């Protein structure tokens, strides 16, 4: 369906909902086409191609609200979706804070946000296969110790999103994504290690070359070989960008208005307090053209914006959707987020930590002795209390340089202490995906090993 037709479907849902008794309604429609190819050991392993679309609806009956969704975008399907939402709204209870944004809060960014690249839908199936094959072949050829492969994959996606509500908002945008990854396996004696590299871009041309992806993936797998478990100790831990961004995710969860109104955040009641060292500035920006967190409006029809969360270590803002803002007597920050099937939540645009001045090598030299983490696994982070404990792997830093690989250890601390114990922030900030961090060094972390 064209974007124009999808807009008609969304408008129909709103009209039917209001005709059938909803006092307010909003409808989201998402449509997309996905193509993927995976190869392994030089042969095509899977090819996938499909298009899908679905609609989600939220209705208000006064202060009650219900939602529904369907993958059937025919008039009958939409009509049933409207009835389902109204029926289920009746069983909910009156919530004085429920409701859509005010009319004057609605709107959208204009101008080209560069979310859609013409070259992505035009990529031929053979080009995806070729890119994946080259990435894997480069990884396999990098070193004799690369003995196996979990494969390489190339994916392209193009889709549209439409949003309409009963207060006159109607907006839509299309976006594209291309990605390429390789996962080689390195072997030394009994030990087997894998790692991956993944390049993602809004445009096909923006992807790293297959050779670059293969080389990086091989380098990452190789440097894990010969890993040891180290003694339990306290040390400075350097998080590489790929893992440092997870720390931003924990802070995001803690500054989300839902965590705040439920009093379930380690950053509750800390607005305008120095919660981190002065070098920390954390920004959420959904307005930067071409970036992954960018959109013209949030999932409630409020214009996207830039919000400084932490400025020079001081907590400046929490992030709100309409509901959380009303609960706390604030205004939405344009962070409304919603999938098609769930209730409205809070999301972020491009969430990033401002870069520092030192290169990773300068940071290793300054740290002297410590742990460089290249992988974190598990879910041992509690953003209610700030308790932090995760599985880790990486390299030991000795004499200011990376030395032997380390695995089967955990790193633990408390997020409030960790924010205050940041000793270095790297200059290596790159905007991949919607959460982006440079290298980050944090002192006094407990490493649990032997």
């Amino acid at each position, binding site marked *: 369906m064209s974007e124009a037709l999808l807009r008609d479907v969304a408008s129909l849902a709103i009209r039917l909902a209001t005709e059938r008794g909803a006092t307010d309604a909003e409808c989201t429609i998402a449509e997309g086409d996905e193509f993927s190819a995976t190869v392994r050991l030089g042969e095509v392993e899977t090819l996938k191609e499909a298009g899908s679309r679905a609609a989600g609806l939220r209705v208000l009956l006064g202060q009650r609200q219900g*939602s529904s969704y369907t993958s059937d975008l025919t008039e009958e399907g939409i009509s049933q979706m409207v009835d*389902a939402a109204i029926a289920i709204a009746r*069983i909910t209870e009156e919530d004085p804070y429920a409701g859509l944004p005010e009319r004057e809060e609605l709107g959208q960014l204009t101008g080209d946000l560069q979310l859609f690249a013409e070259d992505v839908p035009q990529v031929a199936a053979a080009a995806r296969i070729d890119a994946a094959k080259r990435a894997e072949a480069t990884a396999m050829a990098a070193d004799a110790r690369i003995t196996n492969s979990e494969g390489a994959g190339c994916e392209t996606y193009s889709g549209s999103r439409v949003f309409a509500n009963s207060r006159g908002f109607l907006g839509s945008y299309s976006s594209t994504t291309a990605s390429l990854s390789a996962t080689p396996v390195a072997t030394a004696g009994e030990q087997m290690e894998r790692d991956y590299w993944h390049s993602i871009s809004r445009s096909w041309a923006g992807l790293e070359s297959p050779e670059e992806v293969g080389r990086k993936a091989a380098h990452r797998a190789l440097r894990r070989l010969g890993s040891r478990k180290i003694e*339990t100790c306290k040390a400075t831990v350097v998080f590489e960008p790929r893992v440092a961004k997870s720390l931003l995710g924990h802070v995001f969860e803690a500054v989300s208005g839902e965590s705040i109104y439920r*009093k379930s955040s380690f950053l509750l009641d800390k607005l305008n307090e120095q919660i981190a060292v002065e070098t920390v500035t954390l920004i959420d920006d959904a307005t930067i053209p071409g970036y992954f967190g960018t959109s013209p409006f949030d999932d409630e029809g409020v214009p996207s914006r830039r919000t400084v969360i932490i400025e020079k270590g001081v907590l400046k803002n929490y992030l709100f959707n309409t509901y959380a803002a009303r609960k706390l007597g604030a205004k939405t920050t344009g962070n409304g987020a919603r999938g098609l099937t769930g209730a409205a939540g809070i999301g972020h645009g491009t969430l990033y930590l401002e870069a520092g001045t030192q290169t990773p090598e300068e940071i290793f030299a300054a740290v002297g002795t410590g742990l460089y983490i290249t992988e974190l696994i598990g879910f041992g982070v509690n953003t*209610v*209390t700030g308790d932090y*404990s995760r599985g880790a792997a990486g390299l030991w830093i000795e004499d200011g340089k990376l030395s032997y690989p380390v695995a089967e250890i*955990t790193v633990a601390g408390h997020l409030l202490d960790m924010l205050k114990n940041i000793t270095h922030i790297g200059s290596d900030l790159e905007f991949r995906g919607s959460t982006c961090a440079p290298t980050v060094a944090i002192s006094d972390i407990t490493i649990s090993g032997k």
Partner: protein
Amino acid sequence: MVSPLSNLFGQKFGLTERDLERYLSEALSKGGDYADLYFEYLATSSISLDESLVKSATQGVTLGVGIRVLSGERTGYAYSDDLSPERITKAARTAACIASGPATEIVQGLKTAEKRNLYPVPVLAGDTPLEERVKLVKRADAAARAYDARVFQVQAVYADSVRHVLVATSDGRLSTDVQPMARLNVSALAREDNGVPQRGYSGGGGRIGLDFFSGSHSPEAFATDAARQAIVQLHAVDAPAGEMTVVLGPGWPGILLHEAVGHGLEADFNRKGVSAFSGRIGQQVASKLCTVVDDGTIASRRGSLNVDDEGEPTQQNVLIENGVLRAYLTDKLSARLTGGESTGSGRRENYQHYPMPRMTNTFMLNGESVPEEIIRSVKHGLYCTNFGGGQVDITSGNFVFSASESFLIEDGKITRPVRGATLIGNGPESLKHVSMVGNDLKLDMGIGVCGKEGQSVPVGVGMPTIKIDQMTVGGTR
């Protein structure tokens, strides 16, 4: 047969056996070795309570068909959320292109697979009055708050679904299933004066109807458990750091098996030689006390299935017997490529994904020790009774799982509660340190979700109390 099939897909969309044969033939028109069709109709509803108010509720329907074609080691996959003959034919042709050659297989005469019913539910949860379901979250809220005045926030979510599936395969098999599911989750926050709040989680469910939520599965039971955990945590001390003896309680701590061995035994990783367990069949990978099974046939369990998502009946698979690795979990593709049989382990999240080997309900069988005796045998260690999620790197075998409720064991006695901490180990090594296995096997309460390569499926785990002599605990003290 040209009359519509007697299931939902025949009634709602007029699908006939002839149609299925036609689509399968289309899928093999370029010379593929095997094809299957997976029709899915999924209806869900959920009710959320927050701050003692039923704030939101959702219901919806998704449907579609996924078409897979195998050609040697290659998989072609396409799906459509439109069940019109034109769109299904187009998807079949798209998937067919994985092969390049003349049609080799003629598909006719689908044989309807024998049926069993592991989840007899007289009335689907989704067919009970919404008011009855609303009561569950309200009761949970009241019970959690009544448990202790320090409980100040309660969230309760009830969700149910029914999934109708039809799988037709080019080797002539036609299977259908109706898969019910329901669950209730409760989360409670407690706080003392103006101290740091602590959270407790509980819940339960399965392939069950609403009558499940009574007795030990009542909203009150789950709510009390969540509130109790939050209160216990109020006086928890920092978790220890380093290697020590760990005792895991029965039930949900069985997530250890899911992470330490389960994923590493999935046949796709082993066929490719990228799992830490590859090539180890017949080897000792755990202490002699350990027998681990994956069983998709337990009545009413969340991880159980009459047929897997490739139309194969599920079964009980012995993975590790007295410490010796016996078998991998296999889907049809891996079975074809390794000359074995499917173990009924082919699963997928929905019609938009191709199946892969997955777990169902994974647990360790009972040993002979009395749980109290296990605790008494520990001079200094950690006793873990509840866990959050876990994760594994199947190639190195390193895995983690995060304890959300644990206690110190000092001189054979359970003493102080400790704060959450991650435990880390290595799959083929950790279970060799199991020195005692209890006689109190328990399965989890039925709210587990397993993720693999972006696909989530419901699973179960279970375990008796076990003692692991050496494991790394990731605390701070």
